[in-house]
Every structure is written in structure tokens, then in C-alpha cells.
């Protein structure tokens, strides 16, 4: 196994697009776990040259101890896949008990090209552990830098807290459906969906809340802003449909219930326009 510190030609296919590259530097903290000291030294050097703070460990147990004693956040784990005592995927799972939001990039060698391609495809399609990316060895420094930045910037979903927002246009109104948790991270997506309808001069909107797990104050603000805009000059209204009981309790708690008409389901809400 080696990390190439010299320019090399290697068939990398679509995994390493050439040409104009986005910035590949950063200032995040990376935990690097590699049992080969020379590979670890060169990998750490490449990452530090990119601006990252790098914590080094030669084994999973040492990585866990480093994480437990770390005052600040660890943003990314870069780990060898095949290591004695604790492999890379086991390490990801155990590390996430200490730092559940940590992103992970597994690197591995000792495989032929066909096996590497198969492993890469498998990670892309369905990672064996949620939110883990893969980079085959050997890799060039710029390949490592690019992949690290890609994983750090990626919307890798860990856990089941994702939200989906979709809009369906009907003759009389538009229906916005959201699923999952609406928090400060994804409330802008809900606001964008409402604003897109308003910007099209359509002001009759049904918000289908049946599959919303919870909605935080950021989401509530998006709803109240939309209601204010829609009701101006009595040109329309934001109606709520299928609201779960616990969300209705939250709405009641903050005095929002009198500001919205609520319906049991989307059909009756749409029909009310």
C-alpha cells in the first residue's frame, strides 16, 4: 500500500475527474487512522498542506481515545479499511457513538482494479455503514484532497432526520408536502418552496403536514411569513392539512392555531378553495 507523493498515471475512470477543480483546501479537523506509519505520515502531510488540522492514530483504539479527549469537533474520519483488531467500518460505528455527526472516508488497497471498482460502486450505491465514502489506494495527493473536500461538503445523511419537500400544482391551488423534521437546517427549503409558488403569483397553498415529524420555530416562521404574504389583499391563504396531534400542540403552544385553517387531509383542504 502506498500514497503516491509523485505524479503518477493511473486508470481512475470517473472517480477522479480532471480539469478545472474546485478549491480543495479547508480548516476542518480530520482524524487520520492508518496502521502503516509511512502511509500515515504522507497522508497527514498532504492533508496539512491543504490547511486541515490532522489528528493521527495508528489503530482504532487509539483513535477512539483521541476522540474522547478531543475538546473541539472532529469533522471527518479518514481511515484505512483493513486494519488488525478493529477494521475501518467498525471504527466508524464506534466513533459515531462519541461523535455522531462525524463524516467518514474509508481508504483501502490490497485489491485488484476489478475488486476496487466493485467496492467503489458498492459504497456509492449503499455504503455498508451509513454516510461512509470510499477512496481506493493508491491515490495521488490531489485525489485525496479532492475526495476529502467532497465528503466534507457533501450532504451525507446520517440517521433518519432527512426532510423532503415537494410541490404539486393543482388548478385551484398548490400543495407543498414535507416529510421528516423541519429544523433550522432545512426550514429554508420549506420557505423556498412557498416562495417559489408566491413568486409565480399563486397565493392559494395547502401545506400537507401528515408526514412531518416535527417543525421547529424556524419552520413556523416560514409558515407565518407565507400566511402574511398570501392573505395580503385577500388574494389567498396558506391552509394546513393532516397535521399530526403533537405538532398541533406545538402550534397551539405558540398561539398559531387561530392564524391558520386546518383540515384533516389534503383533499378537503384543496376542495375548500
Amino acid at each position, binding site marked *: 500500500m502506498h500514497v503516491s507523493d509523485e505524479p503518477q498515471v493511473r486508470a481512475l475512470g470517473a472517480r477522479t475527474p480532471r480539469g478545472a477543480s474546485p478549491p480543495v483546501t479547508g480548516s476542518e479537523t480530520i482524524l487520520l487512522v492508518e496502521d502503516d506509519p509511512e502511509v500515515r505520515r504522507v497522508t497527514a502531510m498532504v492533508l496539512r498542506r491543504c490547511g486541515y488540522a490532522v489528528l493521527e492514530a495508528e489503530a482504532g483504539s487509539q483513535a477512539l481515545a483521541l476522540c474522547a479527549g478531543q475538546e473541539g469537533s472532529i469533522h471527518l474520519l479518514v481511515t484505512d479499511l483493513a486494519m488488525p483488531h478493529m477494521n475501518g467500518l467498525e471504527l466508524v460505528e464506534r466513533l459515531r457513538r462519541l461523535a455522531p*455527526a462525524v463524516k467518514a472516508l474509508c481508504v483501502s488497497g490490497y485489491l485488484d482494479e476489478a475488486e476496487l471498482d466493485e467496492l467503489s460502486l458498492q459504497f456509492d450505491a449503499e455504503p455498508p455503514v451509513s454516510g461512509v465514502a470510499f477512496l481506493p489506494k493508491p491515490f495521488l495527493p490531489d485525489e485525496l484532497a479532492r475526495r476529502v473536500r467532497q465528503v466534507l461538503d457533501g450532504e451525507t445523511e446520517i440517521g433518519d432526520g432527512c426532510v423532503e419537500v415537494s410541490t404539486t400544482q393543482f388548478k385551484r391551488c398548490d400543495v407543498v408536502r414535507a416529510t421528516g423534521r423541519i429544523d433550522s437546517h432545512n426550514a429554508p427549503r420549506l420557505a423556498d418552496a412557498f416562495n417559489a409558488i408566491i413568486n409565480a403569483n399563486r397565493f392559494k397553498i395547502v401545506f400537507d403536514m401528515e408526514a412531518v415529524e416535527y417543525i421547529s420555530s424556524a419552520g413556523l416562521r416560514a409558515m407565518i411569513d407565507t400566511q402574511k404574504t398570501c392573505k395580503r389583499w385577500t388574494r389567498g391563504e396558506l391552509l394546513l392539512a393532516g397535521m399530526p396531534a403533537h405538532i398541533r400542540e406545538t402550534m397551539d403552544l405558540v398561539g398559531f392555531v387561530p392564524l391558520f385553517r386546518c383540515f384533516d387531509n389534503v383533499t378537503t383542504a384543496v376542495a375548500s378553495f
Partner: protein
Amino acid sequence: MRPCSDLCADQAAAFPGRFDSLSAIVDFVTQAARLAGLESSDVHAVQLAVDEACTNIIEHAYGGEDLGSIRCTYTVDRSGLTITLCDRGIPFDPASVPDPDLHSQLECRQEGGLGLYLMRHLMDEIRFQFSPDQGNTLTMIKRRKLSTD
């Protein structure tokens, strides 16, 4: 999940102080709330209160994303769930946050202060502390409802 009886559990985790950490933080406390045997409506209350608390930390204590971390600790015991959130941001004074406007007409409705208001009403107890050494520490408690069986 079966409610705990004599079980005591505690766990801690650190998260980057940014909004895309909220999902993982809420997953973390949801696991704790279920372990504590809270009713589903109380699990929801914990989720929302922690979401609001972490949003406040990012927006007000740190003044933006990626400027510090959030350390979340939970303790489960017979009485229920205690969650502690620590940050190294500027001191947070809850008294400086005005009560939200809950009764005015739609066009006059102000939207500030909802987060803190929700935290106070969703949890059984919340306490804010600040020390120069430890930074901000927010302790939130949700008690398990006694079974009537």
C-alpha cells in the same frame, strides 16, 4: 422500547456547531428519550426543545455556523431524562430574550423568542449557567410520567 426500571445510563457526544448537525443531535437525544421510557409526545417535546436549544447556541452563543462545537450529554435514571448542552460561545442571558408575541393579529405578529419559549414549555425544567472556564451550560430535564397501572 421498554422503559428503564433501575437502569441508569449516560453518554456524551460532541457535534460541530452548525445546522446540519441538528439531525444527528436530535437522533442522539431521541435514543436517550426512548431509553428513559418517555411517552411519544414527550419524546417529541425533547426533540423539539433540543433542536431549539442547539439553534440558539449556533445563532446567538457562537453567532454563526462552524465557530465552535456543541457537547451534548444525557443521563437516564428512574425519574426520566437529563440533557446537558455545553458551548464555548458568548454568555447567554435568557432574561435578555423578550417573551414572544402569542396573541396579536396575523399582520402584527412578531416572530422572535419562540425558541426559548418552546424550550421552557416543552421541558419540565431548564437551567442556564455560565462560567469562564466551562462556557455556557444548559441543563434540561424531562421527567417520566408515572405509570397508572
